[in-house]
């Protein structure tokens, strides 16, 4: 009988690549910024583009976050999400036009108050609409992807047409509040004030969302629901109610995104929601369907990529995002931060 082999564990540190792997998505964003710095000749224009890329990314994130959470939680894919963006933009812009005396005055406080009123109004409207949409359109087709896609697409058509009925078929032009016009100069680069505000709002939304999901009980239930819904229900939580809450919150966020996007473009149309959905879908796919962090990182990458490429080679801007999506899917087929499902 031979003796047992000697106990000789090797204590090796994980290789650098292994330790960095969890941070790969965020490193990719930084890498993209550095690549932009190398590719773009003038530092000042690089800075301008980076800020506008971040602003665009934040707005896309705000619109996409609801979609990705709704999918993660209930396996519902909402192709009508763009309808909330459009409605949010129309309600918000109408409120801003009503508050013209506040937006026209060169007073930052008044301008921001008007913007807040518009945002709150738009979010309330789209939140309510989200509730109705969930009850009427989505509820009868749970667990059936094909029907979900078709029905929510039908909902999008109807809502777009209703917007045209209520607001007329013409596009509406809107000017930004007085003190958010123009740009400030920083290190030789012109940074549009409005974009800085958009970045700030986006960051606040992301941090608030992260806090809610990670530090509160409701967030715990939502995260558990994403991972294993049946188990959460077995523990006695009414996941249906949680889901409706998430759907309403996601719709309200889409409305917020709509207001911000409308002011960013300075023109709104009934089809704007569906147009932004193209970027939103790219973002949720590369981020990993159901993952809020992935969605955030994906949105930043898409925003930066779009702005850098539009500066270097204008015609390739949209194609570059498709290429980005293809590259990421080759690397991680389920998206950058795949959501693990216990199913």
């Amino acid at each position, binding site marked *: 009988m031979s003796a047992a082999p000697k106990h000789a564990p090797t204590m090796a540190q994980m290789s650098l690549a292994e330790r960095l792997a969890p941070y790969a998505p965020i490193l990719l964003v930084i890498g993209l910024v550095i690549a932009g710095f190398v590719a773009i000749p003038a530092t000042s224009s690089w800075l301008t583009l980076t800020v506008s890329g971040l602003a665009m990314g934040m707005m896309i994130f705000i619109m996409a976050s609801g979609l990705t959470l709704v999918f993660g939680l209930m396996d519902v894919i909402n192709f009508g999400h763009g309808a909330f963006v459009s409605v949010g933009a129309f309600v918000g812009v109408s409120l801003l036009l009503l508050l013209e005396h506040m937006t026209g005055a060169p007073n930052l406080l008044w301008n921001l108050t008007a913007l807040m009123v518009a945002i709150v109004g738009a979010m309330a409207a789209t939140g309510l609409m989200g509730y109705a949409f969930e009850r009427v359109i989505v509820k009868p087709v749970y667990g059936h992807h094909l029907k979900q896609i078709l029905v929510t697409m039908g909902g999008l058509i109807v809502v777009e*047409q209703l917007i045209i009925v209520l607001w007329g078929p013409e596009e509406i032009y809107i000017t930004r509040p007085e003190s958010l016009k123009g740009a400030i100069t920083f290190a030789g680069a012109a940074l549009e004030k409005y974009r800085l505000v958009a970045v700030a709002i986006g960051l606040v939304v992301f941090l608030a969302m992260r806090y809610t999901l990670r530090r509160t009980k409701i967030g715990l239930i939502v995260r558990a629901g994403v991972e294993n819904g049946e188990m959460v229900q077995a523990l006695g939580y009414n996941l249906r109610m949680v889901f409706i809450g998430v759907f309403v919150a996601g719709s309200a966020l889409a409305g917020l995104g709509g207001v911000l996007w409308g002011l960013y473009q300075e023109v709104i149309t009934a089809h704007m929601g569906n147009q932004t959905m193209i970027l939103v879908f790219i973002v949720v796919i590369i981020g990993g369907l159901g993952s809020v962090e992935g969605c955030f990182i994906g949105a930043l990458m898409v925003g930066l990529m779009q702005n850098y490429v539009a500066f270097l080679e204008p015609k390739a801007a949209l194609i570059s995002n498709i290429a980005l999506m293809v590259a990421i899917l080759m690397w991680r087929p389920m998206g950058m931060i795949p959501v693990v499902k216990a199913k």
Partner: protein
Amino acid sequence: MLKTLVSGDTPRSPFLLAILIVILICLAFAPFLFPGVRSVDTAARICIFIVLVASYDLLLGYGGIVSFAHTMFFGLGAYGVALANTHMGRGFDALLVGSVAGAGLAALLALVIGLFSLRVRAIFFAMITLAVASAVAVLVSQLSTLTGGEDGLSFKIPRALGPAFKFMDGELFGVKANGKLLKYYLVFISCFVLFLLMLRVVNSPFGRVLQAIRENDFRAEAIGYRVVHYRVAATCLSAAIAALAGALYAVWLRYVGPDTTLSMEIMIDILLMVVIGGMGTMYGAVIGATLFVLAQNYLQNVLSLAGESVSSLPLLPDLLNADRWLLWLGVLFILSVYFFPTGIVGRLRGK
């Protein structure tokens, strides 16, 4: 013999059979039954959309895959013909080269998209096709030196298909025997053949496997069918046929542009036609496309009449405005997905 022609997939309902025969006769003799530029144009549009919608049904109804890139493939065929005719000069060889190249490119693109998205999750396919299709639409309108941009391309088709060409003297049953008549029959016969071909495909063992995958992909994989291969093959086939339909559409209009071939509106029209006609049956495409194209041309008149009759009430006139017909079709679409998932054909067959 007839049964072989439709690959054993008979309408299985006397009423449906009657409707189909009426549609076939109307389309086959359209230039003689309904002389007039507009009605012949409507008939040709119906023929082409039947093929386009049937090829989409191959994907949606039989494969259970939602694609939003069908107009992209349709457009590839149309632009293929347009570009070939512009650069090779007018002639049947250019038509042939253009349509074959368009169909080949469409199948290749479908292969690439399919391999990327269907491998992971079928639901990705819907989103990725939406993104790619809109990127291509933007690209086509930007590359104006090649594609004519937003204005599109007008081109010359072979002289034998133009109104100036006379293949016999005088008139044929009261219709001028010119190239326009030949062009209609080129479109009609090509569409008829393509439709029978698709009927053959869906009733072949390949079609049965597709339906099995639609019903339960997990089980189909367990039985030993490579689900991804079948799905990708269906995507490529459907893309190639859509491109051929696009080529016919370009020949018919002698023009291609982003609005007539690539726009999201057409994609939504196709979806409406498939669902209203009936998913998962080729005859649904016939009924859906016919009804829809007729409605598109004539429902607006009805709506404007209805709008006038309630013009004294608030909001209602706006809702019944002739331009808002898509609103009512959208509502009809949602209701039909809920209550008649098998569409008109499914109802008639009593399922």
